[in-house]
């Protein structure tokens, strides 16, 4: 959007040259324009001057704690932020998502995984422009946020109030990870971590109603230690 040619501009914040090289090569091959920043300071400058469409943010930076960078970027840009970090930093991922990041990737990851997340992020961001979408479709389900109904094909799916709130919260961020914390806040109004068991209970009953095989869910995807995502695209 920040570019005349219409190709999306991706800001890769990463201090490792080789990883940057691979990002740039594979993303440019897909038609994206890649800008890189190897420090937090430069990242903020690039966000201000280049107005990127997507930001890939490695949490381990030499100068600034990656977590602190999320709100700093949010102050200048609404572009989706995809957090990249090592597996053992799950707590950081949750914090980053709660601080305003949109998605995460765990190192080491494959390029197809990265491209899939970028596509989702761009689509999600575009949809924000359409403001409050009232119909969210996934598989042969249609969720009407306004009319508070869920249709499977032509047939109504009966949901309890809490189940509907949970599903609606996920549907407002299609294909993005919504943390357990955020689900608690949106559904129950409080965000006590000790209550996360209730999210599991209601997600279980949602899966029982929506998924044909709850151990192989197609739509209500659990991200261990982080939260859930509603998959709208296969």
């Amino acid at each position, binding site marked *: 959007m920040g570019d005349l040619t219409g190709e999306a501009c991706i800001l890769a914040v990463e201090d490792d040259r080789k990883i940057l090289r691979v990002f740039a090569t594979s993303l440019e091959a897909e038609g994206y324009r890649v800008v890189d920043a190897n420090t937090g300071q430069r990242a903020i400058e690039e966000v201000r001057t280049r107005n990127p469409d997507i930001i890939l943010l490695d949490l381990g930076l030499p100068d600034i704690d990656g977590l602190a960078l999320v709100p700093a970027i949010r102050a200048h840009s609404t572009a989706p932020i995809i957090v990249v970090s090592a597996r*053992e930093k799950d707590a950081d991922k949750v914090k980053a998502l709660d601080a305003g990041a949109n998605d995460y990737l765990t190192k080491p990851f494959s390029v197809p995984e990265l491209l899939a997340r970028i596509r989702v992020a761009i689509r999600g961001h575009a949809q924000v422009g359409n403001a409050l979408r009232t119909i969210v479709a996934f598989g042969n389900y249609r969720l009407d946020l306004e009319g508070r*109904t869920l249709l499977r094909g032509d047939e*109504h799916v*009966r949901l309890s*109030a809490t189940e509907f709130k949970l599903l609606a919260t996920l549907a407002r961020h299609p294909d993005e990870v919504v943390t357990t914390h955020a689900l608690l806040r949106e559904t129950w109004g409080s965000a006590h971590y000790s209550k996360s068991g209730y999210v599991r209970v209601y997600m279980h009953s949602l899966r029982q109603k929506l998924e044909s095989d*709850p151990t192989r869910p197609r739509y209500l995807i659990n991200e261990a230690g982080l939260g859930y995502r509603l998959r709208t695209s296969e």
Partner: protein
Amino acid sequence: MSTTINKSKTVRDGQLWRLSQAFRHALPGIAAVAAVTVLGLWLGGRADLTNVSIAFLFVIAVVSMWLGYQAAILAAIASALCFDYFFLPPYGSLRITRSRDLLTDLAMFAVAVLVSTLQERLRRQAREARLSERRTESLYSLVRELADSSSMDSLNIAGLRQIESAAPEILARVLIRDGADRFKHAFSSGGRVALEGENLDVANWAAIHLEPAGQGTRNLPVASACYVPLVATRGCVGVLALRSRVSDSTVAVRPSSLIQSMAQQMAMAIERSLLSEEKHAAEIEAETERIRNAVLSSISHDLRTPLTVITSASSTLVENGDRLQPAARAEMARLIHDEARRLSELLKSLLDLTRLQSGALGVNRDWESLEEVVASVLRRADERTGLGALQLRTHVPSDLPLLQIDAILIEQVLMNLIDNALTYSRTDFPTEINIAARGDRDVLVSVIDRGRGLPSDDLRHIFDKFYRSDNTVGAGLGLGLTLARGIVEAHGGRIWATHTPGGGLTVQFTLPITGVAPGLLEPELSEEGIQSWGT
């Protein structure tokens, strides 16, 4: 026995008191002499001087035997005076006219001195024998106690108890020195105590010079306690501090030879204990070294295989990429991809295991759903090449209770078990994951493959670190199962392996059901239009 009286009282008082004591002591002797005199006069002893003098000598000998030196001399003086005065002419006078009468008097003194000296010597020998017996007993029970003590603490406490029971007037402590020759802490007979109140400079002097210092010694005698170094073969291992039980006592504490011997025994025991601690540490070090070597050889083997594939495949692409058929190029790239993934998994297991063992891998328990854990595992398995969903069959009851577990770690356990199962099982038989609650006690998770299975001997060992069955195919650090066991046990569960009926391996683990899991908060009002929602 280890104390002397300070001569602070006036010397005069003491001497008078002692003199009167001596007289009181000698009184029975004097009385006996008087009785012999009266008896001799009554029986007409003046006519039979020989028998009278023998009677006096007999009394003196008896007094010498029973009442000691001073009483004997006094009795001898009294006898000589009475003999001269009452029996020797001129009667009523002390004058001696015949030289043989003087000889009789001298004989009386000679008997007194001789008999009492002999008796005194006997008494002293008996006392010394008693003392040495007590000393031997004290040392013997000290040595026995020290030998029975297994730890440094119990050894010091037992030793101090023995010292205090051998010298009840003394309060004893041991100050322990560390490797840097500083005092770390102290022991009293009650246990470990702080170093407060100890004169550490004096104790240090004793430790450096290897001789007693402080109160009751020639070195720095103004100190509030007496410090006896505990000297063993390697040098000073600690310092024994002795002080009087009575506060502001006028009696200086001094290290008796018994206490010094006991200190010697304690020093040797402490040194033995130190040596055994060092030996134990060395054994742990050796074990660590052995494991480290096993890790290194295992890692270098298991890492080298994928690295060889990656290096050769990528160099082919770099050097000859243009000349390769597209299919061959894709094949090379695929190999690199697969092997890099394998390396990554290997590294992750290794890191997790290290962190689990160092306690750094925290278990973050929360109410979690095993259904979701299985879903995650299946998704991860699907993402991998070759591990298709078709090969996994799951049975997860829909009414499974939530468990207080760390979902990420349990996912890792399942992933490791499935990795193993899929590696060894035959493709025409799916691997099964079965989960079942056993009452409200625990949940049993079973991963069942129908591969070649393992010999019974191996079943017990497959969870041991770096254990690899002879049946092991291809790479695979023996870490996945060790990690699984570590995680399951950290959750209070158990993990074991059995034969699958009809061939194959079954690995099962339990996770305890703890507390009351959250349930649905409201009755399932399955309304299509939900009135209460919104705002």
